[in-house]
C-alpha cells in the first residue's frame, strides 16, 4: 500500500510541465522503480505525483540525418538493450543497461529516471559521461541542452528548474563515431545490485596510438565523474602495456571515493585502478587493438 495523495496522468510533455508548475510539491513518476521505493519507505515528498509513464513523445531511439543519436528519456532499459541503433553505435550503453537490476526492473525503469534520480551509482550515467552526452531539458520557457557533466549538482541533486523535464539524451557523431567503449560494473552480485564502482571507457585509436580517451566513474565520488587527469596523461600514448599502468597510476588523482558501510575507501580505490585497466583493455579489444 502506498500513501499517494494525488496522482495526475499527463497526456503530453507540455501538460506535464503545466502540471508541475501548478503543483510545486509534485514529483514526476515514469517507470517508478525509484519513486515507489521512496513511497514504500513512507517518504512524504513523493505523495503528489505527475505521471509521465508511457508518454510516446519521450519514448524511442533514433539517428538524426546529421548522425546525432537521440534517446528519449522515457526509453526503458529493455528497449535500450534491444535497440539496433544502440547496439551498433554505442554498445557501451547496452553493457550498462543490461547491468541494471533484474529483468522486471529493466522492463519499466527509464534512462531518464536513472539520470534524474541524481545518484552516483546510476549505471547509465558514467557511460553517458564518457560519451559527452547532452541532455535536452524542456521547461515552461522552452528547451535547453546541457552537457551531462554539468547536470549533476550533488548527491541526489540535479540541475532541473521548476517545471523542467528531461526529454532526451543526445550523443553527437564526433563523440561516438570510430569510438569504442566498455562499461564495467563492479558489484557484490551479478544482478539485482547497485554498483560498488562503475567504470566507463570510450576511446579512439589510430596508427598504434590512443587518439581519444574518455574515462568516467560512478561511485568514485558524490556524483559520476570524468577522469580528466588520466585522460590527459594518456592521450597520444602508444598502445603498449605501459598504457594501462599509466592510467592506473594517474586515475587515483581524479577520484574521491569515500568510506561507507557498503565499502571502504581503500577497497574502492583498489577496484577503481583495476577497473580502469580492465575496462580500457576491453574497449581496445572492441576497437580491434592489442597491446604490444
Amino acid at each position, binding site marked *: *500500500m502506498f*500513501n499517494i495523495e494525488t496522482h495526475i496522468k499527463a497526456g503530453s510533455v507540455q501538460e506535464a510541465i503545466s502540471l508541475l508548475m501548478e503543483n510545486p510539491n509534485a514529483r514526476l513518476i515514469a517507470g517508478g522503480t525509484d519513486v515507489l521505493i521512496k513511497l514504500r519507505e*513512507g517518504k512524504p515528498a513523493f505523495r503528489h505525483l505527475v505521471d509521465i509513464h508511457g508518454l510516446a513523445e519521450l519514448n524511442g531511439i533514433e539517428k538524426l540525418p546529421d548522425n546525432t543519436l537521440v534517446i528519449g528519456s522515457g526509453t526503458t532499459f529493455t528497449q535500450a538493450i534491444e535497440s539496433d541503433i544502440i547496439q551498433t553505435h554505442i554498445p557501451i550503453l547496452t553493457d550498462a543497461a543490461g547491468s541494471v537490476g*533484474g529483468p522486471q526492473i529493466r522492463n519499466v525503469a527509464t534512462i531518464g529516471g536513472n539520470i534524474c534520480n541524481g545518484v552516483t551509482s546510476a549505471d547509465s550515467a558514467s557511460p553517458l559521461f564518457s560519451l559527452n552526452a547532452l541532455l535536452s531539458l524542456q521547461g515552461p520557457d522552452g528547451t535547453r541542452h546541457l552537457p551531462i557533466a554539468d547536470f549533476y549538482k550533488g548527491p541526489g541533486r540535479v540541475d532541473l528548474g521548476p517545471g523542467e523535464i528531461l526529454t532526451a539524451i543526445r550523443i553527437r557523431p564526433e563523440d561516438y563515431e570510430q569510438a569504442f567503449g566498455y562499461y564495467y560494473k*563492479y558489484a*557484490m*552480485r*551479478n*544482478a*539485482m*545490485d*547497485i554498483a*560498488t564502482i562503475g567504470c566507463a571507457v570510450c576511446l579512439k585509436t589510430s596508427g598504434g596510438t590512443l587518439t581519444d580517451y574518455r574515462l568516467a566513474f560512478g561511485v568514485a565520488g558524490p556524483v559520476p565523474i570524468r577522469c580528466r587527469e588520466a585522460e590527459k596523461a594518456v592521450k597520444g600514448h602508444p598502445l603498449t602495456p605501459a598504457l594501462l599502468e599509466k592510467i*592506473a597510476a594517474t*586515475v*587515483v588523482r581524479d577520484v574521491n571515493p569515500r568510506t561507507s*558501510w*557498503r*565499502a*571502504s575507501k*581503500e*577497497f574502492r*580505490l*583498489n*577496484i*577503481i*585502478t*583495476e577497473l580502469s585497466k580492465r575496462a580500457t583493455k576491453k574497449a581496445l579489444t572492441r576497437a580491434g587493438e592489442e597491446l604490444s
Partner: protein
Amino acid sequence: MAVGKSVKRIDAVAKVTGRARYTEDFFEPDMLTAKYVRSTIAHGRVTAVNTDKARQIEGVEAVFTYEDVPQTTFATAGHPMALSEVHKDVEDRLLLTRDVRFMGDEIAIVVARNELAASEAAGLVEVEYETYDPLIDPEDILAQDARPIHEGRSNIVGEHNYTFGGDVDQAFDQADHVVEGRFATAMVQHCQLENHIAHAYMDDLDKIVIVSSTQIPHIARRIVGEALGMPLSRIRVIKPFLGGGFGNKQDVVLEPMVAFLTLKLNGRAVQINMTREECMLCTRNRHPFYIDVKTGVMNDGTLVARDMDAISITGAYASHGHAIAAAGGSKQSSLYPKAATRFHARTLYANIPVAGAMRAYGTPQVIYALECATEDAARKIGMDPVEFRLKNVARQGDINLLSNKEILSCGLVECLERGRDFIDWNRKKKDYEQFKTGPIRKGLGVACLSYASGTYPVCVEIAGSRIALNQDGTVHVLVGATEIGQGSDTVVAQMVAQTLSFPYEDVLVVQAQDTDVTPFDTGAYASRQAYVVSNAVFKAANQLRDRILAHAGIMTDEDPKHLDIVNARIVDNRTSEAVMDMKTLAIDSFYHKERGGQLTAEISYKTTTNAPVFGCTFVDVTVDIPLCKITVNQIINVHDSGVIINPVQAAGQVHGGAFMGLGAALSEEFLIDPESGYVYNNNLLDYKFPTFTDVPPLNHDFVETFEPTSGYGNKALGEPPVVSPPPAIRNAVLDATGICINTLPMSPHTLFSAFKSHGFLDGKGGQHV
C-alpha cells in the same frame, strides 16, 4: 513401485497455476491489520510511551503497549515440550517489552482498519528511553561488570562440555603435529520466499482460530496457550500452504500476538503481515560462532585428537538458545568417530537480532571450523586432503562414541570417491600448479559433513498418520508431518502407495494442517520429517492393507492369507488372478448393510533411533586477486541419505542447500554497527543473497545406502546440503592462494583485507602478485 521414482509433486499443479492458497490468501470479514512499534535503540529501558497522536489517526482501532500484555514470560522455540529441566527452553519473552534488547524490539502495537493507518500511527507513537551501552562483542558480553541483558539471568544462556574417544590431552601429547586455527561465521538469514504472516479470530466465545505460516502447528498451539494462559484445546492452529521456512518458522513469532489481539478485540480478525525488512530484522537468523580448533595428527595421516571451543551468539532472546551449539557440536562424533575429541561451547545473549533455528541448526558453523581445521592438518603433513579424509572418516559399523550407537549405514567413502572423480581431482591438481602465482589463481577444495535424521534422544520424535479408504477406491492420508514446500506430502503419498500397492495418483494427502483434526506431529525441522514419518506411515499403511484384505476375505469367503493387493486390485496370490477392484471392495465396505465399515488405520509412532547421514562437497575455484573475487567454476554435493524416495525432489533439496551454502560462503552477512547495534542491511538489496546469475550450475549425486531403522531405508536430506560448501570453498581458496581465510563470508571485503595483510595488494590501488 512408487518409492524411488521422480513422481510429480502432489501440489505442483496447484502451485504453478496459483491456485494453492497461502496464509495471505485467506480473508476474514473486516479483518484488521496490526503493526509493531519497534525500538530505535539496541539496549535500554522505556521510560515513557505516548500513544495519543497514534490513536487520533483515522482507522486506528486500538494501541497496546508493554503495560497491556500478560506478564508471564514464555519460550518461543519450536521444540516439543521437554519433561526434563535440562532440555527446557528459556522462558524470556513477553508479548511486548519495556526492556529493549535489540534495535527493533517490540514495545507497542497498533491495530487499524488498514495497513497505511497502522503504519502511520505506529510511526506516531512516542517512546522515551533510558539507554545502556549495547553489548555486541563477546568480550564485552562476558565482562565481569557487563549488564545482564535479561535481569536476573546470566548473559551466558547455556554451556556444556563433552569428550569422547579417550583422553584428549594425552592424544595431543602423542600427536606428531598439532594444528590450531580460529574461525568466525556470520549472522545470516533464511530469506524464505514467504515472510512471516498470521491472523487470528474467534469463532466462539472461548475459542481462538489462528491461521499461520508455521513449520510447527501443534507446538504453536501449545505455546500460544502458555503465553495467554489459555487451555491448549481452546486454540486451533491452521497451516495452509507455505512459501518456505528453513527454520525461521520453527519458532513462535506472530501467533501469540495475533491471538492476544483477537482476544482483546472481541474476536475480530487481526492479521500481522511482516514486510521483508521486518522479517529480516525481527524474526530469527543464524547464530554467529567464534570457534577455536586444535587438531592432533600423526605423520601417517591418522587424526588422533580434536579440541573445539565455541562461542555462539543468540542475540537479544534465547529462542533456540544453547540447543544450537549443542546440536552442532554433536555432529563431529559421527564424522570422525576415532579421534579423541573435546567440545566446549557457550551461548551468549547480545544486543543484536535474535538467532534461532536455521537450516542445519548449528552444524554449518561447527563443521565449517572442523573441515577447515581438517584441511590444515592434512596440509601440515603434506597429505592429499581427499586421502586424508578417506583415511579418517566414518565407515559402516563404526561406533558413534557420543551416542554409543553403531553406524548402521554409511556411504561417505564412496561419496568422496565419486566427488573426486566428478571434479577430476587428480588431473586438475597437476593442471592448476601453473595457477599458484600471478593475479588469477586456481584451486580445488573438499569438505565432508555428517548430520542426523531427527532430534532423538534430546527430544521426543513422534509422528502420526491416518489413512482412510474412500468410496471410489482411493485413499486419503492425514499426517502431522508438516509440508512447508520441502515436499513431504509427496513422499508420504509415495510411501503409502508403495506399501498399499496403490497407484501414486490414488493416494491423496490432506494438505492444510489443522490442530483440531490432524494427527500429532511436532513439525518440519531437523530434517526429521520423512525419516520419522516413515515408520508411522509404514505401520498405518500395513494396518490398512490388512483391513482391506480382511474385508476382501469376508466378501470372497477366502482366507485373507491367499489374497494380496497388486496395483489397487485384490489378487489371489496362488493364481495371480484379479479378484476384484478396490472400488468394488470400498463400496461394499461402506454400504453393505451387515458387514464392513469405513476402512481406516491410524498410527502414532515414536522413533527411538536417529540415523546419521553423510556427504561432501567438491569445488573448483578461480580467485581474482586484484578484484577480490572468487568464482566457483564447478561444484558438486554427494550425499548418503539412505534410499532416495524421490530423486528429482531430492536433487531440488541438494541444489537449494548448496545455493544457500554458496551465499553463506561468499556474500551473505548481517552488517551490524558495533557501537549502536544498528543493522545496515535488513533488505534484499543490501543483504547479498545470491541471484541465479551468481551461482554456477549445481551438481549432485547420491550414494544410496539402506538405513534399517527407517520405514523405507531413507535418512535425512533437507538440511545437510547447506553444510559443506563453505569449508570446501575456503579450502579451495587456500589451495589457490596459500592463504587461510577463516572468516565467513569470503566476500570481496574479507578477501581485500586478507590480500592486503599478505602484501598482495597495497590498499592504494597497487598490486604485488
